[in-house]
């Protein structure tokens, strides 16, 4: 086993364990922490693929901004422990078999075609900061600007909603 594949499996295991713990934790803040672990592990995976900029942005945006808001809200609302309810019948009879079937299907598809699939190239050249920004600001400048506009509208909306009535 080469060093990159060892790192891959460690990070992947970390991401999966974080995701499972996210669901199983009863304390909301522990769930939020598990989600941060998932985000950071994903950033590590991006780094492994040579997408340095995306990895850094993943941590800065998801880890540093969005999850901080999650944690903030949980702390401010003082959310208590989750109550465990009995499994709904639908989940037991349809959900679990469906989940098992889907996992089996994907695993079988990968196992069956792994010989014929070409290995993914480390996309370093494509995702370097410079090429990425050139793409964003030349070829995809209109979608990019539209997205920024959308976010601006959302921010204004949030301010209008949060404003005190005078």
């Amino acid at each position: 086993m080469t060093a990159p594949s060892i790192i891959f499996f460690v990070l992947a295991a970390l991401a999966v364990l974080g995701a499972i713990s996210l669901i199983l934790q009863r304390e909301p803040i522990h769930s939020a922490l598990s989600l941060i672990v998932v985000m950071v592990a994903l950033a590590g995976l991006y780094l492994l693929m040579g997408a340095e900029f995306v990895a850094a942005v993943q941590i800065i945006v998801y880890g540093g901004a969005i999850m901080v808001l999650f944690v903030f809200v949980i702390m401010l609302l003082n959310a208590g422990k989750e109550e465990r309810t009995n499994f709904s019948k639908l989940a037991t009879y349809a959900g679990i078999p469906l989940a098992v079937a889907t996992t089996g299907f994907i695993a079988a598809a990968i196992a069956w075609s792994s010989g014929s699939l070409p290995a993914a190239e480390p996309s370093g050249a494509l995702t370097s900061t410079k090429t990425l920004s050139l793409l964003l600001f030349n070829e995809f400048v209109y979608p990019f600007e539209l997205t920024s506009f959308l976010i601006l509208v959302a921010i204004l909306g949030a301010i209008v909603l949060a404003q005190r009535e005078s």
Partner: protein
Amino acid sequence: MNEFLTQYAFIIVPLIKIAILVLIVLTVDAYLTWIERKLIAHIQARWGPHRVGPHGLLQPLADGVKFIFKEDPLPANVDKVAYFLAPFLTLMLALTSLAVIPFGPQRFKVFGYETHVGIADVNISLLVLFAITALGVYGIALAGWASNSKYSLLGGLRSSAQMISYELALTLSVVGVLLIAGDFSLRKIVEHQAGTGRGLVSWHIFPQIVGFLCFYIAAIAETNRVPFDLPEAESELVAGFHTEYASMKFAMFFIAEYTSMITVSCLATVLFFGGWLSPFPVSWTFTHYLPSVLLIPFGLWVIFDGMRYENLFGRILLPIVGIGLAALGATLIVLPTVNDIVQGPFWFLAKVFTFLFVYIWMRGTLPRFRYDQLMSFGWKFLLPVSIANVVLTAVAILIWGKL
């Protein structure tokens, strides 16, 4: 054995470098507390620590021993996982952020593995640094929340709100530098500041003075230091997020705070003040003797100072240290090759310590902000100014081309 070393040099050499850096940083942290107490004492016309060792120089050691042996009570009803995780997370992230700072220009070979002064040389080092700082909020927020105390919770909330607000200004204020240097790599940014070898005129501080001021103000707020130390405003919140922490866990927050101060000072040096570059033009080779000119008199003064203490320190330790320092200075004059290697780290350290001095100076001088002042200053003044700086820099580059 030798073969083994060559084969695994890529992992052994970084580990050695990490160990050395952590050792140095922790020592500097410890003595930073001494420098801070001493400086503030003198600003306030006091003596500061002077009992333990000459000039109180062993005070950090005594403090360290005290921290280890103090009782570490666990408050009632704390969230154990988060309570224990918070100090470790804070310290770990603070130390990790130093890994991407380049300390000197040289590349050298160890066990046939080429390496450089600094732990990691990634080409997006600035982004990595910001990513690590962005995660630093969790340590403080978790500490505040997990302690199950109203002071801690309020301190943690204040602190994280402050850090999120000032992170924007911090990130935007360095965009000007990025536009000029055209690279995310801290090493490339420093190399860009070498310019045509005319010394400090090509540093980024001159075109980016506004950016630097925004950066430094935002960085002080990020590290929760005076005048932005609201999270630990004693008169309102006891000690803020670390009220319920004692012993080594409290020390961890403390070490993390001082390490972030060092990181911020390193970053200011690298981004705006030419990193390891000398402020003098390259052709002025006589300035290479500056380290010796400083070291020899300092060593002699240490010997002279030792004569005032009639004990082990004065008779043996201080004279040995003094002779060592003076001898080091003399060696640098005699061996020009060694002297050339020392130049980079010498200037780097000199600049970093200047910034650390300013940090402490400010603590001794400025009163604390009120919370609403802090928020309106960050959002209504610092952020617009740094955005204007970015736009102005971009326009200037568009009109006059790269500097």
